């Protein structure tokens, strides 16, 4: 049962072969049994899930089911859930129970999906290893044999590990600089970061508002399409969401790929990529050629500037976004503040972890009088150049392909004391966020028994094409079906 996809479970529910209550109970049992090893969940909502499952079964019986009615899944703990604590991986929000749903949460609720709980993440989505969570690191289900624990990637490492470990068939995630694609790659699952503005950010706790985008994680491209069908769309509560018709993303999954023009950005096949990783990615591209695609080299000349620009813009926005955590209205407040300044400084010093504080400091610095032009404005100019690189590339090709991450899952603790090396984890993913285009990571092989992800990048609003390309690949490969032991 736990190996089945959302699409399969949905069909079984539809045929009455299993009830949502049974299904939900099975997954809950499995989480309770297995998650001690992974720590992929921060909060399990067992009672609520069973109540929702019961309601879903009634809904099915009444004949007004959606494909999601009764299907279990999980939310990254960055999406606000009415009445269920939402921590964002931080001590600051350890006991925060929002009185509202994120639009994404509400959409899944309306679709009848059954949320089993909230998944672990890097604190405030800042990280690439899910080690900065106040609730402890998440462990990658892959590579456990060697006695070493490996990171699942981040920041959506809880969602990725839970899906890879078959604790849920699907989970929501967010991606600011690679936080869906990199953990998807490291955990051997399929993840999609949509076009900026495609999915509402309302109720999704902000890290860097101009880069944050909610997206999907599941084992198959088809399940990602089913998720996006629920998540995508204009939201009047988010001024940056885009009012544009949402297609049925499952409808075009089976389009043939003949004639698909693939571009390989030469900057992404550089020295930073190990030969073994490169081999896997090139093999995947060959599969596409067999499916009728053509391949050419393209250039994203400003790609090398992406990390630098990102680590100005994202912390700058974060420094303001995180100012609201001041101990005044909700969340953590230090004990016995002696005055206002003491409340602010101790609340924030005690409530935030090291990486979050580092980024607030960097962002505050970048926005300061005398530095603003040299850092923030310059970074915005670079951002426009990077955007233009993608626009130019998509005049030549339909999709771009590259590795998702420079290396497979690394050992926990390996990079925690070296932030810059950690930041380089996102070297292939960050430019996509700066440009706002959609991208996926698709399982494409293994190196030393660890999954390798293929990144597929598309033009604005080309999610249907990306999902189509990923789905067709998954019809001729089985990387996405491999199960960690």
């Amino acid at each position: 049962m736990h190996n089945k996809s959302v699409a399969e479970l949905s069909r079984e529910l539809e045929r009455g072969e299993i009830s949502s209550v049974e299904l939900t109970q099975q997954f809950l049992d499995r989480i309770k049994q297995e998650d001690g090893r992974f720590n992929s969940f921060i909060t399990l909502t067992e009672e609520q899930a069973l109540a929702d499952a019961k309601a879903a079964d009634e809904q099915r019986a009444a004949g007004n089911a959606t494909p999601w009615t009764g299907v279990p899944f999980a939310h990254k703990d960055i999406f606000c859930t009415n009445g269920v604590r939402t921590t964002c991986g931080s001590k600051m929000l350890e006991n925060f129970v929002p009185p509202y749903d994120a639009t994404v949460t509400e959409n899944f609720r309306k679709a009848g999906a059954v949320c089993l709980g909230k998944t672990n993440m890097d604190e405030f989505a800042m990280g690439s290893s899910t080690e900065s969570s106040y609730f402890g690191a998440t462990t990658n289900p892959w590579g456990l044999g060697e006695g070493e624990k490996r990171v699942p990637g981040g920041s959506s490492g809880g969602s990725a590990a839970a899906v890879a470990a078959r604790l849920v068939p699907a989970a929501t995630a967010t991606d600011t600089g690679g936080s869906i694609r990199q953990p998807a790659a490291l955990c051997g699952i399929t993840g999609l970061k949509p076009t900026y503005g495609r999915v509402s950010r309302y109720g999704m706790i902000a890290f860097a508002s101009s880069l944050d985008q909610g997206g999907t994680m599941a084992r198959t491209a088809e399940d990602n399409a089913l998720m996006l069908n629920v998540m995508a769309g204009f939201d009047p509560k988010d001024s940056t969401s885009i009012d544009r018709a949402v297609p049925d993303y499952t409808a075009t999954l089976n389009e043939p790929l003949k004639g698909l023009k693939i571009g390989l950005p030469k900057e992404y096949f550089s020295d930073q990529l190990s030969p073994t990783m490169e081999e896997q990615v090139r093999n995947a591209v060959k599969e596409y050629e067999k499916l009728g695609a053509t391949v050419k080299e393209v250039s994203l000349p400003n790609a090398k500037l992406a990390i630098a620009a990102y680590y100005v813009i994202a912390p700058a926005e974060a420094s303001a976004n995180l100012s609201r955590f001041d101990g005044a209205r909700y969340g953590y407040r230090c004990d016995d503040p002696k005055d206002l300044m003491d409340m602010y400084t101790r609340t924030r010093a005690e409530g935030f972890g090291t990486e979050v504080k580092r980024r607030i400091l960097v962002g505050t610095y970048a926005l300061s009088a005398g530095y603003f032009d040299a850092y923030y404005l310059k970074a915005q100019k670079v951002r426009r150049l990077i955007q233009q690189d993608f626009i130019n590339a998509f005049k030549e090709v339909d999709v771009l392909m590259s590795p998702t991450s420079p290396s497979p899952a690394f050992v926990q603790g390996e990079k925690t004391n070296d932030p810059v090396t950690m930041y380089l984890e996102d070297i292939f993913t960050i430019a996509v966020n700066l440009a706002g285009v959609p991208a996926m990571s698709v399982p494409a092989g293994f190196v030393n028994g660890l999954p390798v992800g293929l990144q597929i990048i598309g033009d604005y609003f080309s999610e249907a094409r990306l999902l189509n390309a990923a789905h067709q690949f998954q019809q001729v490969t089985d990387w996405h079906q491999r199960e960690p032991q």
Partner: protein
Amino acid sequence: MQWDIVIGLEIHVQLATKTKIFSGSSTAYGAEPNTQANAVDLAMPGTLPVPNEQAFRYAVMFGLAVNAEIERRSVFERKNYFYPDLPKGYQTTQLERPIVGPGYVDIDLASGETKRVRIHHAHLEEDAGKSLHEDFHGMTGIDLNRAGTPLIEVVTEPDMTSAEEAVAFAKKLHGIVTSLGICDGDMSQGSMRFDVNISLKAKGSETLGTRTETKNLNSFRFMEQAIAHEVERQMDILEDGGTIVQETRLYNGDRDESRSMRTKEEANDYRYFPCPDLLPVEIDDSFIEEARNSLPELPDARKARFMDQYGLNDYDAGLLSGDSKLAAFFEEAVSHGKDAKLTSNWIQGEFSARLNAEEKTVADSPISGAQLGDLVVRIADNTISSAGAKKVFEALWSGENDNVDAIIDAKGLKQVSDTGALEAMVDEVLADMPDQVAQYQNEEDPKKRKKMLGGFMGPLMKASKGQGNPKLFNEILVKKLGG
């Protein structure tokens, strides 16, 4: 030493939208604390601002009313600082690209001159909440009902040279925004708040002195006092050879004192940057045209019309046209009272004096324009004397009776204007005062003669039980006494 005073103003105008600038909460004043603050206003995690189109419409109307350029693309920025009544830790405001560009307002001065005050720009922003320092036993209460109320901040050039000019400008602006209906103009509730930038320079000098900013003045009177106070303070320092510190000051109107709030060195680095949650505001021609077509009559146009339609002089028309409520009161009165000059005199005299004495605005007036108009009719047609009119006014104001004619009847204020009866009374009184009559007739100086006429009026009014028409008595006296 002689000094020139240089004054610039920053005015926060609360827009009279029903809901907040970025959330659906009500903006109504006076509700229980924190009952008009939703998740967005509380800056709960993940919540996002959604702009209120009405605020943009009002800002555009304001821009058009002050002859300003409307910026087609304006940008909201985050102004970062920590304060408990600022829930997000930043204020969403505009800096580099405000919605209203340069414009101007012409003000009338007591000298009869007109002066142009330039507006540097006006931008949209959200108001903060309120910190309540009383009633919490050493703690601070936070009320976020006001947080997110839309404001336009109007910034002038330093074009004013006296408290009189600054107040004239402030009143003019008040008249404009209330006429537009974009602000309720209720200064006691903080609907308009003034920050005054003041500096002094040697008379005739081109170089501006160091300025101070006195913040949050919420009445014209306090503004006038605060300027006088600050000018004097700076003058004292400069004449003692001292230097002015660039700082923000707070003025206490009740004590006529000011104190430093923070100096330039202590000022925050607000780390402004464009708000990534809000797209740039695009204003197109049709939006501007629509706003232009919705503009009501503004004070300048109304003044011209009052002069033209009612024959008022420049001064009277200026006074009556500035405030839209006062103007409406006048027009209602004159539609009943006909005599515009007399109506104007009564509004500026008795009516304004009573409002001021009781610290009321036109809106709180217990008497209506129609009632004042009815009163003016009875003065003009000689039914009552001006002394009688004051009694009628008093009865209307106190609510004793709401009908002018009924009051006149009840109080027996009707004047006797029957010439035959009045002549008989004059004959009688003159017969009783032969000495005074002789004295009058022997006096050569017409001024003195005129004054002596007054000596007969007392007895005449007494004889008529106060109801004789004084004007007619006067005419008859002059005739009987031989010129």
